[in-house]
C-alpha cells in the first residue's frame, strides 16, 4: 500500500515538476471535477430558451447559446462527463481484455501466441471508426454501444504492448526463479510479470484515453454517438458546423475544449513515458517488485 502511495506521489511530483504536464494535469483535474459536480453547479445543459437561440458569449452564457437557446458552457461541461465516462469505460474494457491476451500470448508463445495475435491482427486491420460504426449499427445508438465499440478497438494496443513487455521479461532470471520454485503459470503471469509491466501499460492507458475521447467525438460527429439531448462534444461540433456563419463560437468553443483535453492527455502520456523510462534506466529494471 505504502509502495503504491509512494509511486503515485512520485509520479505526481514528477508531472508537477514540468510546466507543460503540470498545466495539463491542472486542466484535466478541473475538467473531471466539473464533470463530476455538474449536477450541483448552477448551470442547466438541458434548459431551452428558444427566444435566446444562437446568442453570442455573454456574462450569463459564457460560451453563448445553441440553436435551442441552451447554455453551451453548461453543455460543454456536461459533455465532458459523456466523453470522459465513455473514454474511461472503454479503456477499462480494452485493458481488461487486451492485457490478459498479451500476457497469455507472450508467456506461452507457440500456437496460443499465433492464434491470439492473428486475432489481434484482424482487429488492427479494421479501421477503428468503421468497426465502431458497424458495431453501433448492430447494437443500436447508445452510450453503452459507443463504450463497447471504442473499447474493442483499443484491445490490440494493450495486447501488443503487454505481449512485447512479457517477451522481454519472460526469460529473465526472476521469472525463471519463480518457475523453479514451483510457481504456476498464472502466478507467474499475474504476480511476477504483470507488476513489472505497468509502466508501458500506464502510458498506454493515458494515450488510449485521448484516442477514445477522439473516437467518441468522431462517432458523435458522424451522428452515431449518444442521442440528443444528452450533450456530447462531437454532437456539438456536428450541429455547430451548420451554424459556422451565424454562430462560429458554437462549434469552435467545444472544439477548443476537445483539443485541449486530448492535448493534455498526450502531454501527460509523454511526461509519464519519460519519467518511467528515466526510473527504469536508474534502477536497471523493476525486478525489485518481484515477490517470488
Amino acid at each position, binding site marked *: 500500500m505504502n509502495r503504491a502511495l509512494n509511486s503515485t506521489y512520485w509520479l505526481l511530483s514528477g508531472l508537477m515538476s514540468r510546466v507543460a504536464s503540470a498545466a495539463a494535469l491542472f486542466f484535466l483535474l478541473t475538467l473531471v471535477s466539473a464533470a463530476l459536480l455538474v449536477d450541483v453547479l448552477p448551470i442547466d445543459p438541458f434548459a431551452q430558451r428558444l427566444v435566446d437561440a444562437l446568442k453570442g458569449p455573454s456574462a450569463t452564457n459564457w460560451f453563448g447559446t445553441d*440553436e435551442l437557446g441552451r447554455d453551451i458552457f453548461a453543455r460543454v461541461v456536461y459533455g465532458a462527463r459523456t466523453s470522459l465516462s465513455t473514454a474511461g469505460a472503454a479503456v477499462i474494457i480494452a485493458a481488461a481484455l487486451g492485457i490478459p491476451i498479451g500476457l497469455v500470448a507472450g508467456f506461452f508463445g507457440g500456437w496460443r501466441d499465433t492464434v491470439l495475435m492473428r486475432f489481434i491482427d484482424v482487429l488492427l486491420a479494421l479501421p477503428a471508426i468503421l468497426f465502431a460504426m458497424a458495431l453501433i449499427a448492430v447494437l443500436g445508438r447508445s452510450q453503452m454501444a459507443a463504450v463497447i465499440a471504442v473499447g474493442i478497438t483499443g484491445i490490440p494496443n494493450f495486447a501488443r504492448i503487454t505481449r512485447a513487455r512479457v517477451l522481454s521479461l519472460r526469460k529473465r532470471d526472476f521469472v525463471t526463479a519463480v518457475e523453479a520454485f514451483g510457481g504456476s503459470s498464472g502466478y507467474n503471469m499475474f504476480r511476477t510479470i504483470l507488476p513489472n509491466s505497468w509502466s508501458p501499460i500506464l502510458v498506454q492507458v493515458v494515450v488510449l484515453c485521448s484516442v477514445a475521447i477522439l473516437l467518441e467525438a468522431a462517432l458523435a460527429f458522424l451522428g452515431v454517438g449518444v442521442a440528443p439531448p444528452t450533450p456530447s462534444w462531437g454532437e456539438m461540433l456536428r450541429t455547430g*458546423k451548420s451554424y459556422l456563419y451565424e454562430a462560429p463560437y458554437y462549434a469552435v468553443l467545444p472544439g477548443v475544449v476537445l483539443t485541449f483535453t486530448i492535448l493534455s492527455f498526450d502531454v501527460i502520456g509523454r511526461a509519464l513515458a519519460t519519467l518511467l523510462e528515466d526510473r527504469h534506466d536508474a534502477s536497471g529494471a523493476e525486478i525489485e517488485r518481484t515477490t517470488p
Partner: protein
Amino acid sequence: MKNAFLRPIRLLGVLLAVAAAPAFLAAMPARAQAEQLQGGTLRVAVLADMTNFDPMQFSTVNFPLIKNLYDSLIEYTPEGEAVASLATAWTVADDNMSVSVTLRDDVKFHSGAALTSADVAATLAKAADPEKGKNVYATMAIVKDWVTPDDRTVVINFKAPTPDRQMLDLLQFVMPIEAAGIDTVETVPAGTGPYTFDSRAVGQSIVLKANADYWREGEPTIGELRFTIFSDDASASAALESGGMDMVYGGTARSAVRLKDAGYQLIRGPGPLVQVFRINATQAPFDNAKFRQAFNYLLDREGILRVGYAGLGQPVALPWAPAGPAFDSSYTENYAFNLDKARELIAESGLSQAEMEDWKLLVYSTDAASVTISQIVQAALADLDVNIELDLREGSEYVEAQLSGDYKATFGGVGNIQKFPSRVATNSIYRTANNPVLKDPHPFPDYVAAIERVNTTLGSVEEVKAAYDNLNKVLVESSFAIPTNSYDIGLIVASPKLSGFTLDIDNLLVARTIGFKE
C-alpha cells in the same frame, strides 16, 4: 421667388425619378425581361442525388429533374389558376362524371416520336397500377376509366361526380410518358420536357441539354443544365458564394435567409409543405384520445418554425397551406402553445406515468430540422414531467420505419396542401385506405367520412365550406396527425445575375425560363 422655391423641388423630382428607375425596371413584365436573358450553362447545386427518372415518384430528391424532363397536361399559376400546357383545352361534363382533354399537336418526345392520346392513356394506366403508380396512384382513386376517341383527345371518366378542382389536380399531376418507354422510365427518361438527359456521374453530377424540338417557343433559354451534388448545405452555399455555382436548389431555410441577407436572390415557391407530428393512434399510449389531443397544445409552433425553419413559413394547426381552400386561421389561434391545457388533457387521459413514457419519438437524424424540433417536443413533454427518449435513425432506416408505420410518433412533412383538400389523403398518414400507420379498417371512420363528404360535395359555396369545416373539426379531434407549420421545400437561392424564374405549384425546379442577365 416662386422659381427659386420650385427649383429645388424640380431637382428633387429628377433625383427621385433617377432613383426610382431601377424599381420601375424591376416591375416591368417578366416577358420583357426574359427577352433580354442569355443562355449558357446553368450550374445548380443540389443536396442529394436523384433516385430515378420516373415522374410519378415525387421524391424530393427528384424535384430538380421532373419538370425539366417532363411536362404536365396542365399547369397551375402560383395563384392556383389552371393554364394550358400539353393540353390545350379540357371540358368538364355537365354531370361532373368526366373530363375531355385535348392535346397539343406539335409536341414531340425526346425520342422524336409525336405525343398522342395513346401515350396519355399508357401513362394513366401506369398511374392506376398499385405497383407502378407510385405517388400518383392515390390521386387515381377517383378515376373509373378512360378512352381515346382520337389521337388528340382523352376522355377520363370518374367513379362519381367529381369537383372541378379535383379533376384539375389530376390533370396537373399527370406528366405523359412515352408509351414505348413506360417500362424503362426509371432508368431512361421518356418525356417531352425542355431538357433531355445527357449524362450522369452517380453521386456527383447530372447534366441535361436543351431540347432542340421543344414545343414552347423560345424556350429553354439555358443550353446546358448541370446539377452538382453536394454532401451538405454549407458546402453548397460556399460554392455559390465562391462563384462555383449559379444556384442552390433545395437548401435549408437558414442558409437561404443568410444568403439573402448577403445579396443573393431567394425565390420561394407557392407549394410549401406542412410539418406534421404523426401519431400511431393504434398503439399505446396514443390509442388514448385525450393524450393525443394534448399534443395540439404542447407543440410550440412558433418556436418550431423559428428554430427549425428560420421563420420561413407559418404556424398552422391544420394540414393546409394558408392559400389552401380549407385553411382556417382560427384553428391556429385556438390551438396555440398552452402547456397548462396540455397538462389538463394529460391528466384527463388517466394514463400512468409509466404508460405515458412508454414510447420513443422517431427522428430522421439526417434532417437537422427534424432533430431540432423533436428536441423542442421532448423538452415540452419534460416540462409536463413526461420524459421520453429520441430514436434517431439514418436515411433508409428511417424511411422504412416511417413508410411501414413502425413508430409511435414522428415528424414528417406532407404535401399537396394547397390543392383540393382531399388530396391530403395522398400522404401516408392521411390515407383513408391502405394506411401504413393506422392500418385497415381505418380507426377513425369520421375522418374517412369527412374526406368522402369533401369529395362528393358539389353544391353551393356554403355546402362546400360546411364540408371543409367538418373535415377540419374531425382532423383536430382525432389528432392522429398534428400539423405545426408550413415550410418551404425546393427553396431557390440564386446569383443576382440570374432571372426569369417560373414558380411551380409543387415547388419543383422549372429551369426552362431561367437565363443570365445581360
